[in-house]
């Protein structure tokens, strides 16, 4: 029987100790219960508790090769005296063995999820074997081919849901730690890893089984594995599912299986149909391939706006126009009115009497099969559309902000440039070349900025400030001037126009003056703005773009504001059917905006392309200016929103406009433009554009429409609201009408107590304010927490390097003993190798040696162990583990000297007894071995101290028992093991995985204590 030979373990590197401990505990459990489930459970338990220490690893490829199973072989060698409990080794060999046993391991944990670290291993072990059998048969034997795959799994990345990233990280780290492991040492660790991987895999499978079909498919798709592995996981999940089902109701299960399959296939065809229906998908791909994502964002925005308009057209047409057309097909055009062609541009004349404008709608209640109140329909359609638009905008803005802005951080500029800026969607060779050039230029610029950030002199600063001030003043005054001139132009035009029915062609043409001037201003003034921009010296490109955007927005706002003011205060008072007049004006603006957009892309892009390529190559091919183009779109959409009240079918015009514009811009882009040199952060720009679309523009349009419907008197002779004091009184009338109908009291109640009550709005406002305040505070708290956590990561990185340095220094300071040990170990390695006696001891030593080798390698490289959030606790546990490893080492170390001849434990025990005298030497070493521990800075926590005390006691026991009896040793060992078990169950709960601030405290404590003990040691 094994005698706990005491061997000098000075300068034992920490990591080898860890693995020894691991193996040790596995063996112990094995020894006690001879229960595979127990073994494997323990594996997962501990490896999870000490993720970062990541004892086990090897090169990926090796996992594919077949290796002998150390557990199977070790079994007879160690526990011959317990032959009754021994498993027949024949049943366990090779892959069959591994896969056959694994289920036992994972069945224990079934349905407890991956996170259940502090589970009681004892209870898990107790129920292991019984469940093991039926489930293995039901699930795994069905798929013999999957076994092969499981052993060739490349990456043990086991994920689902929110554990995804963590597991991925763990998996990568495990493999990464020892990329160049010595092949001869690999066997054991490989086995361990494979087992653990399979365990994790089973956990994953179980998690997946628990999900619903849809979620499961999603989760499988999201696994960072190769297709083969996914398929393997999938087949396991399906097999598991079908097996559980078939145990219950075969027929029903079959039916539901078929049903779900049919549903799934149905879902797939719907999905593919939806994809074919997606507008412009191929064109979008082409654009992103040639010009990159930032240009694509313009086209996506265009498409998004197009969808808005299609929706608005559908509801307007469906709820307002169609009922009217059904009721009264022919437009009430005066007989002397004819279509002259110019109407398409001006929108007056013939159009004036159609359903195009407000004036074309009646105020009657259409009486067909049902009564249809046109007034109410008009009011509610417009109102609902505006509200829906607002909601959609708010939500898309909020989502976009959350994704792109709140988390974004400008600090990591160059890391971003290097690692995140490559646009993998680009496929054209020219674009790739340009991109490379641009990136190079940008990197060089940022470097030069960094190296020669000269202090600007006061005069230079003043000069810059002066330029800023000048250009801001100039641009603001330009915008105001534009607004004012448009106002006076409108007044001038209004004096000339009369309220007559029939306009001459000239009169009609004169109406085009205002939209022409407005559109011209929108085209020309931004060019001035970009000219100013050239003279300014902005420190960053982004600020430059923002300045440009703000100026353009201001210009467009002032123009639109003036026009709205003019319509509401002048037009509304003068014309008899003023809503239609405004509708016509908006129609003209929309049409002219379209023409000028085309002109803009002709002059701005085509001509400058011609100039750039033929005449002045110095200028070069123009870039596609995303910011300017998006602002143009926003402006166009604002016109449509304002116009929705006055001209319900304006969205139809807008749809045609956007549709043509898409192809126009696409052609112009591919023919004339080059990809933008500076891409900036396209996603953030997009967020800003959506925000701009919402805040000044949509809110402006909404408030204008609301003001009109609440405060202005509708025209008396035309439109659905004729004869009312304002549009909103439609609702009042309706409510009044409802009072006569029984059963509609609740509508009246809502109207009285909610819509018309100030108290309600007051309370709502108050609640919203409170909610906003709470969320604001929560956000602030989270920000602080993020900062703290980030600091914690940094601190723990420092702690870790500090501890590792300490350990390495100590190792170096005792160079003699380790070398002796190494020699001994080499000896054992050879002997065990030659005799093909893969006893556990040899394995342990090999593993240890490997870890030592690794430790040395790391010393040479000077690269510390990778960090993790749970570093400190993991380290502490690792150190604890080492403590116990030294106990084991004593046992283990005795064996190599005599294991050359026999594999039977009995014989070994006899040998050991004979060699008892020589233990005096070993005993001599032990005190130094243990007193050296604290100097290693290893016993970091109280737990570790306890463990040490206990270990010393145990060793005391051993020392007494040694000469007397083997069984005594075994008992002591068992006792120690039980204590260990308790210790282990306690440990994880003491160090819960998500550490929070307690981990920080622990880490600091550990560090302090390590420091103290380090001093004491000397």
């Amino acid at each position, binding site marked *: 029987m094994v005698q706990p030979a005491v061997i000098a373990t000075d300068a034992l590197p920490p990591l080898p100790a860890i693995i020894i401990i691991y193996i040790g505990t596995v063996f112990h459990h094995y020894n006690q219960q001879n229960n595979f489930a127990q073994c494997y459970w323990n594996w997962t338990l501990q490896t999870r508790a000490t993720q970062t220490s990541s004892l086990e690893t090897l090169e990926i490829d090796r996992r594919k090769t077949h290796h002998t199973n150390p557990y199977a072989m070790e079994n007879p060698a160690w526990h011959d005296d317990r032959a009754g409990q021994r498993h027949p080794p024949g049943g366990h060999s090779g892959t069959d063995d591994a896969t056959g046993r694994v289920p036992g391991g994972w069945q224990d944990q079934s349905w407890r999820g991956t996170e259940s670290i502090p589970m009681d291993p004892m209870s898990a072990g107790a129920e292991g074997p019984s469940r093991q059998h039926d489930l293995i048969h039901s699930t795994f034997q069905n798929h013999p081919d999957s076994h092969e795959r499981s052993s060739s799994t*490349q990456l043990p990345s086991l994920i689902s849901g929110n554990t995804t990233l963590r597991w991925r990280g763990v998996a990568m780290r495990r493999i990464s730690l020892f990329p160049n492991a010595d092949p001869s040492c690999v066997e054991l660790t490989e086995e361990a890893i494979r087992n653990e991987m399979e365990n994790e895999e089973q956990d994953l499978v179980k998690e997946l089984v628990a999900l619903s079909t849809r979620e499961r498919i999603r989760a499988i*798709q999201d696994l960072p594995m190769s297709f083969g592995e996914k398929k393997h996981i999938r087949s396991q999940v399906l097999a598991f599912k079908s097996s559980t089902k078939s145990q219950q109701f075969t027929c029903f299960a079959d039916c539901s299986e078929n049903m779900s399959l049919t549903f799934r296939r149905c879902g797939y065809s719907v999905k593919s149909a939806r994809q074919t229906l997606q507008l412009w998908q191929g064109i979008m791909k082409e654009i992103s391939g040639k010009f990159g994502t930032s240009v694509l964002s313009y086209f996506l925005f265009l498409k998004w706006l197009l969808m808005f308009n299609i929706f608005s057209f559908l509801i307007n047409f469906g709820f307002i126009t169609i009922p009217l057309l059904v009721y009264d097909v022919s437009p009430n055009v005066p007989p002397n009115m004819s279509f002259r062609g110019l109407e398409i541009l001006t929108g007056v004349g013939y159009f004036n009497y159609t359903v195009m404008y407000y004036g074309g709608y009646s105020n009657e209640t259409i009486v067909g099969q049902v009564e249809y109140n046109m007034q109410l329909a008009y009011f509610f359609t417009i109102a609902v559309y505006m509200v829906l638009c607002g909601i959609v905008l708010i939500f898309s803005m909020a989502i976009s902000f959350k994704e*792109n802005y709140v988390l974004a951080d400008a600090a990591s500029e160059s890391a971003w440039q*290097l*690692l995140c800026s490559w646009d993998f*969607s680009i496929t054209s060779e020219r674009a790739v070349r340009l991109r490379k050039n641009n990136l190079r230029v940008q990197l*060089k610029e940022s470097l030069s900025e960094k190296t020669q950030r000269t202090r600007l002199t006061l005069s230079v600063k003043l000069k810059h400030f002066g330029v800023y001030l000048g250009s801001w003043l100039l641009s603001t005054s330009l915008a105001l001037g534009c607004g004012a001139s448009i106002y006076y132009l409108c007044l001038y035009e209004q004096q000339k126009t009369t309220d007559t029915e029939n306009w001459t062609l000239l009169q009609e043409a004169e109406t085009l003056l205002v939209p022409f001037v407005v559109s011209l201003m929108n085209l020309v003034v931004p060019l001035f703005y970009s000219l100013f921009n050239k003279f300014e010296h902005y420190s960053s490109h982004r600020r430059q773009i923002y300045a440009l955007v703000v100026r353009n927005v201001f210009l467009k706002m002032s123009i639109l504001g003036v026009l709205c003011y003019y319509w509401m205060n002048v037009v509304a008072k003068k014309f008899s059917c003023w809503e239609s007049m405004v509708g016509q004006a908006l129609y003209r603006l929309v049409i002219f905006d379209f023409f000028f957009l085309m002109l803009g892309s002709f002059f701005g892009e085509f001509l400058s392309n011609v100039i750039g390529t033929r005449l002045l190559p110095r200028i070069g091919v123009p870039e596609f200016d995303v910011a300017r183009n998006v602002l143009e779109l926003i402006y166009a959409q604002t016109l449509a929103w304002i116009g929705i009240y006055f001209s319900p079918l304006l969205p139809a015009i807008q749809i045609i406009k956007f549709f043509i514009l898409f192809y126009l811009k696409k052609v112009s882009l591919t023919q004339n433009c080059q990809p933008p040199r500076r891409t900036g952060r396209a996603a*953030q720009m997009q967020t800003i554009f959506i925000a701009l679309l919402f805040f000044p523009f949509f809110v402006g349009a909404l408030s204008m429409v609301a003001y009109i419907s609440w405060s202005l008197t509708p025209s008396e002779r035309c439109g659905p609201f004729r004869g009312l004091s304002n549009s909103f009184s439609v609702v009042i009338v309706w409510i009044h009408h409802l009072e006569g109908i029984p059963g509609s009291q609740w509508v009246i109640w809502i109207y009285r107590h909610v819509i018309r009550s100030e108290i309600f709005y007051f309370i709502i406002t108050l609640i919203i304010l409170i909610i906003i305040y709470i969320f604001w505070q929560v956000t602030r708290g989270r920000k602080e927490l993020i900062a703290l956590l980030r600091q914690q990561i*940094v601190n723990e990185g420092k702690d870790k390097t500090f501890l590792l340095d300490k350990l390495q220094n100590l190792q170096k300071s005792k160079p003699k003993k380790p070398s002796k040990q190494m020699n001994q170990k080499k000896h054992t390695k050879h002997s065990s190798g030659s005799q093909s006696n893969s006893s556990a001891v040899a394995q342990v030593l090999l593993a240890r040696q490997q870890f030592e080798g690794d430790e040395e390698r790391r010393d040479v490289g000077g690269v510390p162990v990778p960090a993790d959030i749970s570093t400190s606790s993991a380290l502490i546990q690792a150190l604890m583990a080492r403590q116990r490893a030294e106990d084991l080492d004593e046992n283990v170390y005795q064996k190599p000297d005599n294991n050359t001849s026999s594999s039977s434990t009995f014989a070994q025990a006899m040998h050991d007894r004979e060699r008892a005298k020589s233990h005096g030497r070993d005993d001599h070493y032990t005190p130094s071995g243990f007193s050296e521990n604290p100097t290693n800075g290893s016993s970091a926590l109280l737990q570790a101290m306890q463990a040490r005390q206990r270990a010393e006691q145990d060793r005391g026991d051993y020392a007494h028992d040694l000469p007397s009896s083997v069984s005594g040793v075994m008992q002591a060992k068992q006792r120690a093991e039980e204590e260990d078990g308790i210790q282990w169950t306690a440990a994880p709960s003491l160090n819960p995985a998500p550490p929070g601030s307690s981990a920080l405290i622990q880490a600091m404590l550990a560090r302090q204590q390590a420091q103290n003990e380090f001093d004491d040691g000397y």
Partner: protein
Amino acid sequence: MGNKQTIFTAQQLDAYQDCTYFTRKEILRLFYRYRDLAPQLVPLDYTNHPDVKLPYELIGSMPELKDNPFRQRIAEVFSEDGEGNMTLDDFLDMFSVLSEMAPRDLKAYYAFKIYDFNNDDFICKSDLEKTLNKLTRNELTEDEVRMVCEKVIDEADLDNDGRLSLEDFQHMIVRAPDFLR
């Protein structure tokens, strides 16, 4: 549809659909793309899982990858043998991850692997240098390359180990919303 069905069994198609982000139609389209690369090598019948691998030279010549500076890395990362030779499964896998349906986490994971040239699961300085040279056509001086790499590590390395782990990389990705859009 009739003759298409003979390429894959219904079960195979289901598996492909469950494991990639593609629909049946797209899978078939991709299969034809794959086959067009080497019609003499790839059989039209995949029902019995033929073991066919296309060499990297063919894969890298596809228009999607041809101009990508990382094409070799991409092919290596996604191929099972690590050398860029791809089976149909690898091929589908690659396009699935690179498609727009794939979530950012997954893309970030593979991007990390792509940038990790020496497969040590850390982006260290040598990896960054390689990335930089691939992205800028070797036109930066050594000094500049070194400075850029130092800056990158300085900015993105949270735990001060002098290289970027997957966690570091993900931290950075979270703050870079345009990543792989």
